[in-house]
């Protein structure tokens, strides 16, 4: 049991959850306001994605110059699969779901600690969706996973 790696996971998770709430991503009305390109457009959440991607775009290449991570023996990175129908259909369906309620997976889970009455509907439905897609469409091929 790699205790340091466990603490790293806890710390990173706490940082992630804090960021989600501070940024406003856990407010589904704000998310829908961001996706609303009519006169009501609320551009605020652009800064969330912008801020996060600036950090990863600068830091990821530097991190990946290392031979291995600090606490484990190798990086677990997605392979370089081509863009396929499964990716586009999946992302398209995800966007529809995201727009319908204003929740994507991270904020939806955090909502368990904020708005339990919505989380108790959304999260089981999302888990069912994971299970259905995993069971009927097969797991992703080794080396093509975008995350592990």
């Amino acid at each position, binding site marked *: 049991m790699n205790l340091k790696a466990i603490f790293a996971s806890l710390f990173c998770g706490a940082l992630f959850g804090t960021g989600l709430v501070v940024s406003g991503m856990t407010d589904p009305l704000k998310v829908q306001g961001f996706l609303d390109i009519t006169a009501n457009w609320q551009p*605020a959440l652009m800064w969330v994605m912008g801020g996060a991607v600036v950090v990863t775009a600068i830091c990821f290449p530097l991190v990946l110059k290392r031979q291995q991570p600090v606490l484990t023996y190798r990086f677990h990175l997605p392979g370089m699969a081509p863009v396929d129908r499964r990716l586009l259909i999946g992302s398209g369906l995800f966007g529809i779901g995201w727009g319908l309620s204003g929740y994507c997976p991270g904020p939806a889970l955090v909502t368990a600690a904020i708005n339990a009455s919505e989380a108790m509907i959304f999260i089981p439905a999302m888990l069912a969706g994971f299970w259905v897609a995993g069971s009927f469409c097969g797991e992703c091929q080794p080396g093509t996973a975008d995350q592990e």
Partner: protein
Amino acid sequence: MSAFFDAYALVGGLLIGLSATLLLLLNGRIAGISGICANLLSLSYSGKNIRGALFLLAMILAGGITYQLMGDAVAMPREGFPVWLLALSGFLVGVGTRLANGCTSGHGVCGLGRRSWRSLMATLCFMTTGILTVLILRISGVLV
């Protein structure tokens, strides 16, 4: 149109980016929430899944505590949202992110940081259908 700049959004985004960077640097993992969560359904007690479960647990707890600490700076929980819409939405998010192998975090934050072509396509795709969906909700009067 509401205020263009939002310091909370920017700071929150930087924290998310920092978290993703540290997880990659320390544990060599991509901070993709849908992937971490879906992997837990396998019910295997691998080190990967234990660390993933703890990541999510810490995320939920820290999020809840932050929400309490922020007081008036965050909106009250939404009430009265149609249950069928929540259920349909959750199901589509689950199926879609599993098929696409990623969500806003895995493709949006981490994938774009890795300059992944697949992640860029995925992000453009879910942004587009998200915008269209909200547009339809507005036009049909479900959202006011």
